């Protein structure tokens, strides 16, 4: 199951893209409430958004971003049928990506 949810909304001049990722975003300083052990750092490092294969936005991040990161941003010149692709990689080298067609 994909960890990425993408939605879009047409605005007057641009298109707003909303992006939600399911990820723990652990910074490595929290303790497990049951056994008191440190929970290893586990966070997304890079998120890349492409429009028809071209990078339009990329975000580098660390453990200071909230659990289940949510972003919204506004892209210019989007047409119906255009392909938006989002992909991430975390500090465990796990990755995921999702594609979305603009309606």
């Amino acid at each position, binding site marked *: 199951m994909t960890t990425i949810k993408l939605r879009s909304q047409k605005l007057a001049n641009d298109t707003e893209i909303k992006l939600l990722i399911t990820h723990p975003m652990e*910074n490595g*300083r929290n303790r497990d409430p049951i056994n008191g052990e440190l929970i290893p750092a586990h966070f997304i*490092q890079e998120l890349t958004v492409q429009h028809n294969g071209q990078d*339009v*936005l990329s975000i*580098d991040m660390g453990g*200071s971003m*909230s659990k289940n990161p949510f972003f919204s941003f506004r892209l210019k010149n989007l047409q119906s049928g255009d392909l938006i692709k989002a992909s991430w990689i975390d500090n465990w080298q796990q990755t995921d990506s999702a594609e979305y067609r603009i309606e």
Partner: protein
Amino acid sequence: MSLPRRIFFTQILKILIGFSAVLASRAGRANWTLEHFSPSLFEDSFKTFYGNQAVIDSTDLQLKLPASAENGAVVPITISSDLEQISQVAIWVEKNPTPLAATVQFSSNANIYLTARIKMAESCHVIVIAKQGERLLKTQQWVNVMQGGCGTG
């Protein structure tokens, strides 16, 4: 050298070559820098990132944050600007153990507009720096954090 041993070493060598190839391909793609996202004092981390470049206060960067946040684990932030030629925006949380929360690279096909959710360990300034060509523009806002959630920073 006995044969099994030679095979063993050959295998090790193959694994090493494969591993270095993976490392090389990662290096080619990644800009993410451990140093920037490591725990550090804000002043030190900021200096490592920007060096001694001058930072100009700007009223053309709009920053929207709650005046006070009930839960420091999820603080919504909105950044926007009508300025041209902004290539990167960085979000800094002054008192977080890891002060740099994120850097955002915008292409010319993206408006300078972003909403996100950040963690805040305690009440402090949230500082946003935008790179416009060679210039660094700054805006900041104080946020009172009621409960610095244990999931913070």
